[in-house]
């Protein structure tokens, strides 16, 4: 069990110092930090939401900006400075087209099985592709699909959101349009496939949808 030093909950810290504390924690971290972690270092009655709003204001127009990722926060250098900050990504391997497509299919269709990725791309997924994306910590195993064979499903990680500057999956570019066009349905749209009337609004719920074996044959 972990207890904080000096029983911080009881500490007398004025609101300016509370602001300094969350600033320091967020500034010092290269990963997103959630409110719970922040509040552990603050008095019990600290108004975290207010402090975060103040911090956002404080860094308005500065070299860094406070970004929300999921329900966490992270400082990043301001995107409008990218023209100066830009580095050639020599460290980042140039991703293959197959890997980029696989990543976008997983991102937009998550949770997605390997068979679903293959069905959309019309070609098998090479073993290295999933591994590469997992190694970059952009995708992770989410669970298993409840269909015969119980295949693994994949989804994106928090690091994916951080890396691609997204607050949440819903903020993926064109998510809404693609969805309304039926392009994110795992199955063919109902108007094309009359006997199959599945039309899930909620991407998260498609976990247990039965894969349409017919469509896999194309």
């Amino acid at each position: 069990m972990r207890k904080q030093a000096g029983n911080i909950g009881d500490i007398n810290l004025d609101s300016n110092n509370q602001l300094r504390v969350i600033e320091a924690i967020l500034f010092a971290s290269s990963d997103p930090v959630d409110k719970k972690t922040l509040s552990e270092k603050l008095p019990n009655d600290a108004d975290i939401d207010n402090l975060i709003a103040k911090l956002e204001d404080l860094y308005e127009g500065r070299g860094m900006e406070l970004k929300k990722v999921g329900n966490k926060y992270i400082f990043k250098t301001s995107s409008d400075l990218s023209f100066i900050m830009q580095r050639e990504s020599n460290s980042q391997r140039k991703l293959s087209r197959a890997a980029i497509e696989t990543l976008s299919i997983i991102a937009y269709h998550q949770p997605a099985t390997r068979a679903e990725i293959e069905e959309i791309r019309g070609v098998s997924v090479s073993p290295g592709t999933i591994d590469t994306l997992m190694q970059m910590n952009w995708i992770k195993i989410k669970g298993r699909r409840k269909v015969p064979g119980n295949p693994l499903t994949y989804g994106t990680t928090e690091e994916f959101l951080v890396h691609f500057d997204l607050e949440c999956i819903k903020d993926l570019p064109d998510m809404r349009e693609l969805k309304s066009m039926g392009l994110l349905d795992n199955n063919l749209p109902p108007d094309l496939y009359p006997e199959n009337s599945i039309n899930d609004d909620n991407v998260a719920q498609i976990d247990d949808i039965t894969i349409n074996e017919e469509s896999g044959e194309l």
Partner: protein
Amino acid sequence: MNFLVDLEGFEGPMDLLLSLAREQKVDLMEISILELANQYLDFVNELDSRDIEIAADYLVMAAWLAYLKSKLLLPNEEEEPGAEEMAAILAFRLRRLEAMRDAGNNLMNRNRIGEKVFRRGMPENSVTIRNYTQKDSMFDLIKSYSEIRNRNYVVNWSPKALPILSMEEAKNRLESMIGISLEWTNFLDFLPNSKDSSETAIAYRRSSAASIFSVSLEMSKQGKIEINQNKNFGSIRIKYKESEEIKDNKEISA
């Protein structure tokens, strides 16, 4: 049409179809699947005529497209699924693949960490201070001490030899002394002589008395000596008996 490209650049038949579809220069929503099927079949035939090896999945697609084409040209309404529907499904799949391809490219062009924006370069890690509470109790302490003492007591303690006159020694002593005392003699006089009043000496005298007395009872039973005591708690006296015993034995035999 220019068929200088071979299959090397394509990731499967869907990829090829999508790139052929782009040649129609229309929105995928309005694409002519019949025309696309022709494009694909022409492409594959051209490769074939140049003896270029064509992977099986491209040929499967070619066969399927040839079938679709024939159905589109000769509609038969009783068949399921209808040709129009099959064409629509193919068009949908092409749109979906294109959408995912575009989405992937859009992702890669975002303000990516490490390229356009940067995270904290020198993160400060939290330091963990470990505190331990010793749970050792007073009981643990004294139990431990007692265990050491108990353990080593068993191993190391050797009792001091008690000052005793053994039965063997008592018998030898009495046998050697009785021969010279033909008169009744207090058995205590046969004990080792000691004026020592130390505890050890007293203990030795007690042990000697017990041993000598036991031995004298034994010898009396064997008829080697006689024992008498005049009254309760009176002195116990013994004397040698061998000659009389022999005499008696002679009388009996006579």
